[in-house]
């Protein structure tokens, strides 16, 4: 036995007269007109997002050298990448390391710098410029500069450390230090996050802090109970965009690895990926190695699909768990 509950919406639907052929034609015309207006966007999304996405997935089940027609090979590429391709698991581990460590440290540093810049009494604009400027440096130039600064043999950083009697790491030439060195480089260019956090921090109502202060809340409690909840949507945005960007981390590790190794391959030549000892190898580098150096587009597409699935999974989990873009109070 069911009970029908009458709501304004159902009542309106019941009151609505049956659509006449004339009305249907008008709706169809409107639909076509709307589609016509949307067609450039639909075409763009279809051509540059959906078509490559579906093709990538399909190609991952084919043998395709980029020249001759693809031939279906079932799950052979998947088996090769997961079982036989020696660089996949190290690259995945490195990518996860960067996602966890690099994204977190960039977030924390960006927030600290943002808070510092808005709270200093004098020289705020100078500090803002100093912290933001590195973000504008081209990635290749910035990476080259870091490799030279941190060169274990001739770099000024190790010279200073040596004079101070401190240990001199191998930085980009040492598997234990190469990822921290890349993280340092990423933190140096944290100006983008600093600016976003500054804007968000300036939006936090001052009355909330004043009221909390009257209630006896200290700086830590004010940060935890006022600043953080208010910044939640911005933090969520920073985490998701940071994770996606780190999943695509390519230029800096590639340039750092090649320059530090001294093995700048000529055009078309394969060079050691992820120097030193595979420690800077990331998944996007594998896509290039497989697809464009080994002519194995099918296997490259497997890595691309894995990257896509991981990025989507991170984004979905983060958005569902934190309602990040809305904030917990909404």
């Amino acid at each position, binding site marked *: 036995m069911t009970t029908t509950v009458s709501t304004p919406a159902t009542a309106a639907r019941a009151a609505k007269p049956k659509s006449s052929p004339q009305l249907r034609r008008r709706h169809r015309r409107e639909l*076509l*007109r709307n589609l*016509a*207006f949307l*067609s*450039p966007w639909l*075409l763009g999304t279809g*051509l540059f997002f959906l078509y490559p996405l579906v093709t990538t997935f399909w190609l991952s089940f084919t043998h395709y*050298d*980029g*020249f*001759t027609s693809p031939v279906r090979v079932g799950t*052979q*590429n998947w088996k*090769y990448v997961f079982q*036989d391709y*020696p660089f996949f698991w190290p690259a995945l581990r490195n990518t996860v390391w960067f996602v966890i460590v690099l994204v977190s440290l960039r977030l924390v540093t960006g927030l600290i710098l943002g808070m510092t810049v808005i709270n200093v009494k004098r020289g705020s604009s100078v500090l803002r410029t100093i912290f933001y400027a590195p973000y504008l440096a081209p990635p290749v130039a910035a990476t080259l500069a870091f490799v030279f600064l941190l*060169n*274990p*043999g*001739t770099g000024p950083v190790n010279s200073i450390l040596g004079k101070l009697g401190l240990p001199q790491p191998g930085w980009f*030439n040492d598997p234990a230090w190469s990822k921290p060195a890349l993280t340092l480089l990423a933190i140096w260019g944290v100006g983008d996050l600093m600016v976003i956090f500054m804007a968000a921090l300036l939006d936090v109502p001052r009355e909330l802090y004043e009221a909390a202060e009257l209630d006896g809340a200290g700086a830590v409690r004010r940060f935890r109970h006022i600043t953080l909840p208010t910044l939640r949507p911005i933090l969520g945005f920073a985490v998701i965009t940071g994770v996606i960007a780190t999943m695509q981390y390519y230029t800096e590790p590639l340039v750092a690895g090649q320059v*530090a*190794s*001294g*093995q*700048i391959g*000529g*055009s*078309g*030549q*394969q*060079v*050691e990926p992820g*120097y030193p*000892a595979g420690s800077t190898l990331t998944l996007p580098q594998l896509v290039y190695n497989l697809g*464009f*150096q*080994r*002519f*194995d587009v099918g*296997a490259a597409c497997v890595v691309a699909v894995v990257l896509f699935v991981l990025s989507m999974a991170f984004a979905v989990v983060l958005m569902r768990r934190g309602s990040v873009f809305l904030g917990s109070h909404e």
Partner: protein
Amino acid sequence: MTTQRRLIRRLAATGVIATLAVSLTACFGSSKGGANDDPNAKVTITFWHGWSAPNEVKAIQQTIDGFEKANPNITVKAVGNITDDKINQALRAGGPNAPDVVSSFTTDNVGEFCNSHVFVDLAPFMAKSGIDPEKTFPAPQLAYTAFQGDQCTLPLLSDAYGLYYNKDMFKAAGITSPPKTFSEFDADAVKLTKTSGDTYSQLGFMPLYHGYESTITHFAAQSSPTYFTADGKSNVANDPPLTSTYEWQKSLVSKLGGYAKLDKYRTTFGDEFSNNNPFMTGQVAMALDGEWRGGMIDDSNSKVDYGVAPFPVPDDQADQYGKGYITGTIVGIAQNSAKQNAAWEFVKYLTTDTDAVVNFANAIHNVPSTNAALASPNLDQNPAFQTFIQIAQNQYSNTTPSSPNGGAYQLTLQNLGYGYESGKVTDLQARLDAAAKQIDTDIAQAQ
């Protein structure tokens, strides 16, 4: 209201037309190639090459001018500074703007070019022109331009590797002649090494695999390895010359102070292809390098008084002293070219015309790639350059064979070397077994 509706309709129609226009311009086709064109017809062919330095561009243009003079019906449109990524893209897409003739600086991709037939097999063209490849080209050059019997490219100048040594440092160390065997070389390298604290003020030789041209395949050429069996399977686990090369390099690393010390010293080296190259700055007394280094030293302000000799060979192969590693630039004709006969006339001139090859080789300090050009009296008679000519002519000189996955096997062997020289790999044979399996798996995946 009617005007507004008309405006909306027009806007919508414009949207549809714009969409269709974009769709239609996105559709392109590739032309179907073939060797049915008349080589005597007036035609323009497109030639893609990688040379970009002014002297190189000038030299290739002079070669093209010579061809056009000899073949007035064919005009060559040269496009320089082309990388392999662009080549692959163009060969894939085809179309009217795609190149007819393509050259590449690396031999690594010949296997894929032949395997996928994006370059035509040049054997029928050579037969038609009465060219005997075995008599025209040295064996290593023929080997690296073909894959499994498909001669889809030809050599367009070569590179030979030899030993550069600093004469002043040799004299100071009391060494009167360049070493010929590995044991002589090791002794000289130690004699030429001067330590300073935990580093060096002068190193005899940088043996590490990251030491620029000191790769496993370049070293191994001195032992004449066999990388693949006749049926195309990896032979690296069962090849004594290769195993002994790894062992010799490792022992030299130990003799010169160990991996960590050498690797730290390596980080003080300048860029390989600059005037800060460690041989040119006097940081190392000996170096394994190609013939181009001599030209670079001569053109630079380096004060290094250098000599050149063939790189030493293992003691048990002393009778083969004089050989070395050979590689070079390759040139082929695109399968989708509709002007293949005209393109062949150009390729034939570039690769087999003795005067053209000699003049081009002299102009860019490269080794010629035909037997006739190597023997030509018109070649640069500079003693250093002539040493490389002799290395290229040596019957035991060899190269790395083509593979269908861009030379991935060389990377596998190089990675093994990194692990072995640093001490992370101790059981060499076990790792060679694993490398052989990996190479076979990679090649099976690529085919």
